[in-house]
């Protein structure tokens, strides 16, 4: 059994992994209880499992946990809290940009990565950045508005 040292949401976490290939998603959800990150496809096709690794949006369902050892991992729980929302989260609430909400955490994380690199994106850039995040309920128009709103308010 191998020990794995991770840095998640600003804290050092050590877990035991039987399988060296265990995807980050399962470590986050099962070992660390961070269930805000969702399983959607296991194929890096839908974006529901998106987290930030060193500031980049990464699909945790196909990312081996060991490959991010030592890097800063941020999940939706580490982005903001109800009392101290990230501007992206605040904008999603302002636009009521969710229906079932299962895909929402992944979209918030993707949007956060975009705005950190491109603080004033065009709407086309927002759409392109979110192209790998699927939503079935059809909240897209509100999500686009939310990300533009966060950007307009200096959402870094």
């Amino acid at each position, binding site marked *: 059994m191998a020990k794995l040292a991770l840095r998640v949401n600003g804290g050092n976490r050590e877990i035991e992994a039987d399988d060296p290939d265990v995807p980050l998603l399962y470590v986050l959800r099962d070992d660390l209880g961070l269930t805000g*990150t969702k399983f959607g496809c296991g194929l890096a096709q*839908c974006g529901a499992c998106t987290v930030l690794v060193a500031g980049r949006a990464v699909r945790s369902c196909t990312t081996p946990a060991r490959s991010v050892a030592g890097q800063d991992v941020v999940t939706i729980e580490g982005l903001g809290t109800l009392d101290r929302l990230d501007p992206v989260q605040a904008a999603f609430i302002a636009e009521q940009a969710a229906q079932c909400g299962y895909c929402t955490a992944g979209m918030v994380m993707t949007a956060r990565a975009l705005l950190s690199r491109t603080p004033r994106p065009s709407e086309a850039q927002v759409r392109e950045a979110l192209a790998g995040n699927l939503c079935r309920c059809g909240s897209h128009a509100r999500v686009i508005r939310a990300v533009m709103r966060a950007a307009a308010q200096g959402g870094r």
Partner: protein
Amino acid sequence: MLSRRAFLASSGMLVVGLRLGARAGAQSIPGADRFVGKSLAPDAVDSYLAIHADESVTIFVGKVDIGTGGRIAMRQIVGEELDIPPERIAMIEGDTALTPNQGATAGSYGIARGGTQLRQAAATARQALIAQAAQRLNKPVAELDVADGVVRSRDASVSVSYGDLIGDRTFNLKVDPKALLKAPDHFRFIGKSLRRPDIPTKVTGLHRYLHDLILPGMLHARVVRPPALGATLASVEEASISGIPGARLVRIQNFLAVAAEREWDAVRASRTLRATWVTGAGLPDAATQFDAMRASRVVRDQDIVKKGDLSALSAPPPGLTRTLTAEYRWPIQTHGSIGPSCGVADVQADRATIWSSSQNTHGFQATAARFLGLERHRVRVIYMDGAGSYGPNGADDACAEAALISKALGKPVRVQWSRQEEHGLDPKGPAQLLELRAILDAEGGVTAWETQAWLPIATANLPNIPLLALDAAGLQQTPGRSTGLIYQNVDPPYTMPNVHAVVHWIADAPLRTSAIRAPGKIANTFAVESFTDEIAALVRVDPVEFRVRRLTNPRAIEVLQRAAARMGWQARPSPRPVEPNAAVLTGRGIAFVHYKHDETLVAMGMEVAVERATGRIRVTRVVCAHDCGLMINPDNVQAQLEGNIIQTLSRALHEEILYDSDRVTTVDWSSYPILKFPEVPTLEFELIQRLDQPPLGAGEAASTPVAAALGNAVFDATGVRLRAVPFRAERVKAALGG
């Protein structure tokens, strides 16, 4: 507008839920178990609501919020009738031990029926509370008013609160169907776009979904599927998973599953386990499925409409008549929930608790009681949010699987489907085939209209969609098929004297079927409204004018005219003259529906650009005029319409389930693509609020005209009529002759 903080602070249950976190106990809402034993009778006030000594209220709702906003709308309804702020109301949904059976959350009836029942119960409660207050305060009822849950005399000399009158005691009253509802001019909450209570927790990752539920001692399980539908299990090598910590096997006839304490170990075990299967009967050829439908054995014909003189259909009158015929095809499609189905079950010798995202927890309670051999009241099914579902997806299957494995292993069990299971095995929206015929007179009038629809027949009184695990495990269940009411809206909504609309109910469908959003009516409206457009084009009449001329209902005419006005519609026949050398062709289309003939009215306009070289359709603008009667929460209604439009555009442009002789082959998002962010058009709405009318529902109606409006716009742009969904680029290119 309620502030988020005020809402969370006053809705104590939500706050408790957050603090306990994802690994907390077994209830969907902490504290809910104190209500066990309460009334569940559908005609009792106590079944729907309880008023507490601290002036808060709990409502018990059989209809569940699957992301649709019922969680705020139901509070608005009850808050309105009781005159208490919605943020003081906690809500329990879809718990068979706590909520009355209001039927499945389906058919766009969540608010229209479920909310209306709740409203009448609240009005009855208010009436009773005022009568009690009159006695207590020694004042006539006519001199009393209610504000924020306090009954006061008009002279403000005396008052008593709801909590003091009834706090935590029962009403013991039947719902009074004559209890006076509040008049619209006194509405404080109904008709307002109050914010949903669940969005803050959803955007911060704190919202606890079914998929996140962990019970003490719970095992994670995966079902090991056969390589072909209907295959039987010959042998299993249990030793093949011996290297995976704690992995164990469950086999019941052809039902095979693995379980482990850690989820990834269960996934690994399901991939590692070696088993030998004997292939089943096989599936028919997908390439010829529509020919097979036409050739299929017809169980019976059902006339949906048969009126007027139909002689012209059998013998078109000689002279200046024209006959128009067209066939429309709609493929098999999946619900495509973003989170694959999940189920959690704790089955013990004499009782069972099942946590489910099913839209019909009460229905599943009866099903589970049957297959577990328990009395119905020994089975409790508790709704928890899942990923959005649009009808019965794999939720009941996953729960049945969790229950069988839990029973076998004596521990709580969570089953999580994979993406491939969800796409491959969820019960599907069936294919639909329609042939339409019109006899036109010399002046362009419609002498006669005929719809023929080939649709798979549903089984009458089927208790549940046959579940995969029960079949595999050899457990008894009623065989049959569920489809929803797929025959509705096969006839034109227009004034036409001679109409024959017939459904040929056919015996078979290649894959398991279920109701999927607006079941049947999306394809039927695609056919009827495309064909209406074909007639208008043939007789060279503007498509809006053609429709308005044949409508008498002023509400129908209003939605069409408002959609047209919003679009800046220029009256002219379709198609527009095609520029011979243009690389991109643009056009506009319109479609109309009167959902289920007497419910919500929708007119939808669409603007498209079609790339000639590739056949790619870009939808640039959608305008939706919508009259669903009373809107409890207009922003929620609009969110539903956005969802209807985007989801159905996706279905019309991209989606088709395919299969080989063994199984479904479109089992991921690359072989079954859906609409992506860059494709989302501009959406505009004309929402018609009718405060004095009953609510008619908004969950489905706006999905039904989408494909027709799209096809009509493509025709307007290109002169080419698309009659088979999906309108994928290669198909459009071929139709354009490219």
